[in-house]
């Protein structure tokens, strides 16, 4: 089951709007206008200005967004790129401009022009025949095409530039995302925007992760905004979501002259409450069911738990990979128009199940509400931006005492009292007829997102380790494991496990594999297997060297590189508990069994290892515990990267801690 929420259909709509900006370096020369003159300094430029190691750099990137009264949205793009290296030549020489019927849009591309200015000033312009129109895909109702061309004569030192017009009939610029970063750095990004002349609305722009845009009035009803020295966008491991890192701008229309966020959210929360209350209203069947399900439960927690378990256990989520429904059955599913329908049919999508839960809770006398929430895998929501763009009707809030509690029974793997990580730690707007409020959703503490690993091994004199392993995942770790595997066949799950183990322990041979509770909403996800690892311990003439941290064997450091450009972000706090018992080989005794020192990172991280030996000195017992993350979103500023890297390096070092066995005879027990 994938993380699909109520708002799936809206997402499609938003994507369509965004595609306009996302596809394009855009700029602005009206058809018929000529190329801008080439500054000799640009031709002579030997090194990039914005990022010193860039292979190519856009000298400028201009887009004219014309949302004029004609009834079509027109982007006019113009980009000029300086190529510095062979890599730059290779990456910038081929241009594809998609167009055609895409999700109801009918994008047209016009007036393509492109040319290469060689280092000696020679200009090679592409001819009309050099632009190929090709169908990328044709199907019923969909026709995606591309205009493709190759830049001629490109070599390091060349400047390439191209421009085109992209016309979207019957579309508006409302909620268009304008990008300010490309895969190469840009010296100057300039957008010219001509808003639609609504009599009662005006265009607004919101910049994300960049300085606040200022607009300059231009000719013919356009306004321009410029940003300079924009670095290329780079991905890094453990970085915040892309929209939280890139510089971009959202343009939209609004009737409000001055938007006061508090008032805006209050009004919105009221409107949504009014619009949704009828969906929560229980009919007789819902009321009857609520009463039956609650039965003799007395406390609010108990009642809600029964309702929660009821909907999850009895209402099939038709969008769930683990629903067990065939493709044919899913195809025949009818739309539920009310919680009563959902209850009657015993099936629905995630939002149907959430609504039914809210309705049942209402029937049981609880105050239940629809909650508007942003997706943390997309962006960290800031209520200071008074606009519903990022919010989706996602979860259900129920008041218990004076506290709002959040529930998502439509999502199979989030147990009672927990949301999926994308919804945790976010400001949720709880709708209300009078005073809607933002309430922060709780973050599941590290102790609940636990991986517990146990192993019992026997070590042979030749260094072979053999025994049984069990690994249990709970909380967010469990959810991720279930999501990873619930759409796989048992054979594919086993193969994935084998690959995972052998990727860092190449000689491992797995057998008797069991993978349990893959689609169970409550029980921990479990791997259990027998493993044999020839050469696990390294043998010299008189010693065996053994790394007792079996589960970390061969795993590299989390942050192997010293440079970092973005903040460091973990999706959720988690903890690890390992117990490894190893029966030592006859003929060898422990030479040393000292444990690595504990590693504490204040409230953020805690690592402890304990190594013990049984009285008869035949069995080594290794206990490792690691907890990471404060009880909140785990976001570290880039300035802390060296310390964070150092911590994880030390942790990796400790996980590689080796103990020594020497030849000899152990004492015998009586």
């Amino acid at each position, binding site marked *: 089951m994938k993380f699909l929420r109520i708002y799936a259909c809206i997402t499609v709509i938003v994507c369509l709007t965004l595609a306009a900006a996302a596809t394009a370096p855009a700029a602005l020369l009206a058809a018929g206008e000529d190329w801008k003159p080439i500054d000799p300094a640009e031709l002579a430029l030997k090194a990039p200005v914005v990022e010193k190691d860039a292979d190519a750099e856009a000298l400028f990137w201009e887009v004219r967004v014309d949302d004029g009264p004609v009834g079509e949205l027109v982007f006019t793009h113009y980009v000029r790129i300086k190529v510095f290296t062979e890599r730059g030549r290779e990456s910038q020489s081929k241009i594809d401009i998609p167009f055609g019927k895409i999700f109801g849009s009918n994008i047209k591309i016009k007036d393509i022009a492109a040319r290469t200015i060689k280092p000696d000033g020679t200009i090679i312009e592409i001819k009309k025949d050099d632009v190929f129109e090709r169908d990328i895909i044709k*199907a019923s109702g969909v026709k995606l095409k591309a205009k493709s061309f190759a830049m001629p*004569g490109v070599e390091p030192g060349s400047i390439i530039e191209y421009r085109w017009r992209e016309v979207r009939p019957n579309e508006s610029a409302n909620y268009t995302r304008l990008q300010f970063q490309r895969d190469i750095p840009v010296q100057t990004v300039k957008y010219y925007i001509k808003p639609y002349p609504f009599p009662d609305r005006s265009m607004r722009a919101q910049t994300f992760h960049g300085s606040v845009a200022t607009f300059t009035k231009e000719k013919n009803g356009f306004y321009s905004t410029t940003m300079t020295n924009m670095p290329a966008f780079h991905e890094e491991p453990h970085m915040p979501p892309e929209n939280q890192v890139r510089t971009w701008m959202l343009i939209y229309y609004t009737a409000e002259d001055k938007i006061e966020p508090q008032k805006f959210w209050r009004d919105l929360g009221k409107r949504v409450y009014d619009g949704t209350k009828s969906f929560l209203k229980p009919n007789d069947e819902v009321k009857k069911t609520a009463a039956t399900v609650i039965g003799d439960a007395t406390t609010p927690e108990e009642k809600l738990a029964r309702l929660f378990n009821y909907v999850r256990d009895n209402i099939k989520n038709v969008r769930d990979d683990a629903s067990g429904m065939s493709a044919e059955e899913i195809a025949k599913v009818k739309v539920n128009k009310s919680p009563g329908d959902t209850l009657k049919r015993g099936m629905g999508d995630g939002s149907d199940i959430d609504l039914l839960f809210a309705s049942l809770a209402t029937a049981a006398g609880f105050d239940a509400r629809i909650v508007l929430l942003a997706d943390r895998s997309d962006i960290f929501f800031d209520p200071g931006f008074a606009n519903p763009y990022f919010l989706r009707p996602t979860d259900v809030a129920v008041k218990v005492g004076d506290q709002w509690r959040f529930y998502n029974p439509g999502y199979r793997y989030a147990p009672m009292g927990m949301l999926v990580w994308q919804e945790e730690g976010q400001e949720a707007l709880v709708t209300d007829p009078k005073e809607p409020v933002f309430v922060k959703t709780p973050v599941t503490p590290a102790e609940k997102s636990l991986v517990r690993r146990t192993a019992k091994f026997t070590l042979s004199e030749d260094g072979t380790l053999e025994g049984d392993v069990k690994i249990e995942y709970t909380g967010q770790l469990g959810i991720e494991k279930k999501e990873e595997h619930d759409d796989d066949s048992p054979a594919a799950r086993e193969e994935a496990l084998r690959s995972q183990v052998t990727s860092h322990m190449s000689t491992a041979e797995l057998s008797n594999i069991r993978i349990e509770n893959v689609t169970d909403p409550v029980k921990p996800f479990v791997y259990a297997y027998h493993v044999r690892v020839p050469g696990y311990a390294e043998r010299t003439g008189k010693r065996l060297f053994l790394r007792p941290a079996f589960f970390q064997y061969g795993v590299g450091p989390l942050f192997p590189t010293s440079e970092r450009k973005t903040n460091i972000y973990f999706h959720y706090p988690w903890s690890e508990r390992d117990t490894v018992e190893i029966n030592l080989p006859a003929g060898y005794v422990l030479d040393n069994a000292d444990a690595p020192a504990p590693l504490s990172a204040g409230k953020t991280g805690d690592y402890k290892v304990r190594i013990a030996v049984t009285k008869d000195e035949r069995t080594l017992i290794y206990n490792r515990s690691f907890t990471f993350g404060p009880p909140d979103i785990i976001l570290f500023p880039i300035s802390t990267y060296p310390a964070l890297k150092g911590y994880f390096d030390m942790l990796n070092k400790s996980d590689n801690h080796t103990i020594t066995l020497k030849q000899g005879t152990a004492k015998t027990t009586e």
Partner: protein
Amino acid sequence: MPYRSFMFLLFCGALLFASAPAAFAVEDAPPAWLQQAAIARVPSFSKDVPAVVLVDEANVTVAPDGLITTTYSYAVRILTREGRAFAVAAEGYATDIGRIREMRAWLIRAGGASVKRYDKNDVLDQAAALNDVYNETRIKKIIAADDADAGAVFGYQTVSESRSIFNQMVWAFQERIPVISSRYSLTLPVGWSATSVTFNHPKIEAVVNGSTSTWELRDLAPIAPEPHSPEVTTLAPRIAVSYAPAAGAAAGLNRTFASWADVSRWYTELSDTQVTLDDALASKARELTSSSKTEMERIRAISRYVQKLQYISIQIGVGRFRPHSATEVFAKAYGDCKDKANLMRAMLRAVKIESFPVLIYSGDPTYVREEWTSPSQFNHCIIAIKVSDETQAPTIVQHPKLGRLLIFDATDDQTPVGDLPDHEQGSFALVAAGADGTLMRMPVTPPESNQMERQVEVTLAPDGSLTGTIHERSTGQSAVDERRLFNHLSRPEYVKAIEEWITRGATGAQVSKVEPVDQSADGRFTLDVDFNAQNYAQNMQNRLLVFKPAIVSRRESLFLTEPLRKHPVVLDSNAYTETVRVKLPDGFDVDELPDALKLDTAFGNYAASYEVKEGHLVFTRKLTLHATTIPVEQYSTVRNFFERIRSVELSPVVLAKK
């Protein structure tokens, strides 16, 4: 956009749901052949086999005017969830010479409970080569994966028409999943004849019935992917069929090729006229070679220029086979493999060096077979340069009529003159030189031509920290691997990649210098790295220091992890040597050294040794592998070979306090 209320959401949802059933095609009975296939019993397979092909059948009719009509029928039973991906109908065609007249598909759900039929509204029509700027080859598809469940049978039938340039066809009886029945039938006009060649299987004889010949195989076992195994194109059975009109039939029909010389003549006619030379191109060739003193230097200068041109593929009509003219490619400074080879021929001609195009198959060195004379066996074009005795390189072959030929790939910009990409080495390729052209075996460079030498100098401190340098020098295909990494990553990304490599061996290492030097003209690549690592050696009870002298990994490791295997192991030719000199900390003596290891086999040699000399530990390791295909019967030997290497390279050295 107004706020999206629940009402609105549900409205949208309703629209989506309401439209879904309409998109489904009407139920319809599948054809008899599919119904029969669906109820036939199939053997049981291991649980990792995702699907089994029940029917894979082409009935091909060639008309007297050369028009080819093919009725293709295919049925697959889905065995697992992953097997749903096989519920796809796919048929390629070239827009200029062919069309798919009809495409229909059916999904018979598990147990025959119900049937879904797909029609033209479900057909996707997409470009076959998405990376090409233009290519007329397309694919029609019906994707039923989302409708299929384990136990379902998906089948489809197409009727297509085409005109081939050659009277030759290839039929592969299998890809990787098992096949119950695969059949190819060819119906020719009366008096015409057909011959076949079988690959990867004992000869498959055609059953002839009137003017129809049928080749069939049944019950083919799955071909599971294995690391370092031959390509599936070398394992799965296939036939090549050539047909010819009756003697005296109208001329102008498709070509046939009686010999490799015929194929050579055909391609020479097609390409030679494109070796055009104008003043601009000739003067560029002369300018590039103006300071070259030898033949090899002239070739190298031109080769560098051509390899650096942008690779752009534009395939229109006969352009699939014939290169664009050299002057056109020169003017635009881009082209595909045959364009580049052709441009290089023209530039070499300008400096009085003769050369020939070479047709080859890129991706499987054992794909091209001598016994079937057909240009259909090739997918790539390189060049053979006639050289004098003064030019020496491991990639020179002796042609019986053309003399010494230097083989070179003008497309692979990581592999310079004097070397050849390893996936082309040892394969058959056609040197197209008119009547003198022949199919010949491409050179295989020896391990010492593909060598990496590494020198590591480190100082180990009493606290276990390490400071040191790494110097690497690579040649041939070993250098190509290094060069490819270097050229495909930006400088910061490259430094990161090197850091990751170092820190994998020495956790927390700080890398203070990364200096790569690409001497591609000479086929060499060097890399210098300075680094230090705290706590590299583990201090035990303040009396022992334990560390691994193999500080960084060999770049390429072979992990044959499975205990059993079904197919041979394919090794490339390369060699590796490393010397690690560790200055030992004062106050410590060597207490224990790992045992030295020496392995000698037909496919490779390995030696590791340890020596303590003048306060230094000297660890050396040397691995040489020959280009070999090792039979599966010897798998345990080759697995053991690499396992023993892995084991010794993990072994630690123990120092004890004096």
